[in-house]
């Protein structure tokens, strides 16, 4: 049967295929996203693709949906779905570990997915960590490490494989922090898209056994050094250039601004 004016039926928004796949994973896990969140994620994906920073990504956790089911999902692919411990609070404004026992396991082993001459990680927070030894993301064992932190031990730091760390002053207000290793001898720490420190020195292998955790540092298989900020974005990927970081930072700011957080 034909209906008059059927051509005026409302059409749903058109989303990028990878954004759609992410939405499907969130739904399948029992989570849900608002139209505003879907639109923000879609814009984020398009921006990352337009600026050639989608392909280097291994895991992107946009922390939307205000539930463990939604926030555990990797935007980049169906791999590396996270698992949360008890002690997290999930809200539209971001996710907050308790700084005492809470972490998320990304199930991502660095050496299996990146190289020690090209690797990066980063996060955004809108409430900064206040634990003196709280580390926001990473893994480390006796001989290697892949971790960055904003203010633990009185400094901000990038340790993307050992060698010389890139260290700067502690950052105690919300913002974005990135660490990127682009050669076997150089890593750079970025704050809000701007380079703040470099580390130049021989590199060690990336971690081969243990997985990267969020909200705390995976110390040889036992997460510790828990953080307590409120986090709105995490990523892990191949090494990013300064231009890549500038573009990524802009995309994350746009993403979180559109979500009023």
């Amino acid at each position: 049967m034909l209906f008059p004016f059927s051509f005026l039926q409302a059409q749903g928004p058109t989303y990028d295929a990878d954004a759609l796949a992410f939405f499907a994973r969130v739904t399948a896990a029992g989570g849900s996203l608002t139209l505003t969140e879907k639109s923000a994620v879609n814009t984020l994906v398009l921006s990352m693709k337009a600026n050639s920073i989608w392909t280097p990504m291994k895991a992107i956790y946009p922390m939307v949906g205000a539930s463990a089911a939604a926030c555990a999902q990797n935007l980049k692919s169906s791999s590396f779905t996270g698992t949360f411990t008890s002690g997290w609070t999930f809200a539209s404004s971001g996710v907050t570990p308790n700084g005492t026992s809470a972490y998320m396991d990304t199930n991502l082993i660095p050496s299996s997915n990146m190289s020690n001459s090209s690797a990066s990680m980063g996060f955004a927070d809108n409430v900064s960590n206040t634990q003196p030894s709280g580390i926001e993301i990473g893994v480390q064992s006796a001989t290697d490490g892949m971790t960055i932190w904003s203010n633990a031990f009185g400094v901000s730091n990038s340790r993307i494989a050992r060698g010389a760390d890139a260290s700067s002053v502690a950052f105690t207000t919300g913002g974005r922090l990135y660490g990127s290793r682009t050669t076997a001898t150089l890593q750079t720490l970025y704050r809000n898209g701007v380079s703040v420190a470099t580390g130049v020195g021989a590199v060690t292998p990336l971690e081969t056994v243990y997985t990267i955790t969020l909200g705390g540092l995976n110390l040889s298989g036992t997460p510790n050094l828990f953080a307590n900020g409120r986090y709105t974005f995490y990523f892990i990927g191949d090494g990013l250039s300064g231009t890549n970081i500038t573009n990524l930072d802009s995309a994350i700011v746009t993403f979180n601004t559109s979500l009023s957080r």
Partner: protein
Amino acid sequence: MIGYILTNEEYNQVQGEFYTPEQFFNCVADINGVWYLFLSTQDKEDILNTTWNWILTLPEGEYIAPPAPPFPPVV
């Protein structure tokens, strides 16, 4: 910080067990080696009507963290 206090037996019952498809219990030992479990308000709602709700009846106490491990770690 206030948390639930667990015996070793209770710790063995809950540690690493999933209470939702994406969330599992993680206990931490205090400075004296006593096990504590910290649950957010959302965690408590999640387990309220499950077989894990006995956790909510455990005694609570103030947690004193052990010293942070050496950094970089020594293995």
